[in-house]
């Protein structure tokens, strides 16, 4: 399956994956983050049951303290 992750092509050896699976496959461990799939914000408690499909546009940004 091919998706766009932060405007870059990303390929996974699966038909679909959940957001949680994507985070663990990519070893994204920093917790303060925002994820949007095709422009829709995914809340943290939806990571397990939100499925990423072929062609999806996944955007992730990290929130660092300081300002």
């Amino acid at each position, binding site marked *: 399956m091919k998706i766009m992750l932060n405007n870059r092509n990303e390929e996974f050896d699966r038909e679909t994956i959940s957001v949680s699976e994507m985070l663990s496959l990519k070893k994204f461990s920093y917790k*303060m983050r*925002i994820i*949007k799939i095709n*422009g829709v*914000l995914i*809340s943290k408690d939806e990571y397990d049951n939100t499925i990423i499909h072929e062609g999806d546009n996944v*955007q992730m*940004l*990290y*929130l*660092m*303290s*300081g*300002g």
Partner: protein
Amino acid sequence: MIRILSKMNLSEIRSHLGKFRVGIAGAGGLGSNCAIALARSGVGTLVLSDFDIIEESNLTRQYYFTDQVGMLKTIALKENISRVNPDVFVIVHQKELNRTNIAEIFSGCDVIVEAFDSSDMKEMLIETINSKMHGIPLIIGSGVAGWGRNESVRCRKIDDTLYVCGDESSEVSDNSPTMAPRVGIVANMQANIVIEILMKMS
């Protein structure tokens, strides 16, 4: 429309920006510097929200003066804005923002700037604007700590409603404090995006 706008001179640009209202959530290093840049540029109305009092340590990076220590940041910033550009209409709220008051405080804003210190508050604001003010562009600051590394600071458009300025990796710590140049760069990047968005609005 964009073609016409790009042919404006500075006074026409300032008069165009004068039609808009920008919300700034937080009046610390990001918020105070961003507000001043927007005021100098001629943005018509600024809505400032913060409940903190100015401490001497804030003067290392925030747009306040020694004789303002002890004042509410919102009141002092309103005063400083009026000294820079008295034509800006400034609305202040001395409130801690939360999921229930954000939509009311920033109602009518064309763009909102996130200028909090804590990452939890940044997250809360993004979620709340997304659910209660959907479609209003929000400009996040993330990754401002330390010094140097100019090339790591960037602005990234997530989509039409969400932009992030900063390096998205530097977290504040005792040995990587927030310092004037880097937080000022990010605050001004946020202001720069606000102007870019407003220049495309009619």
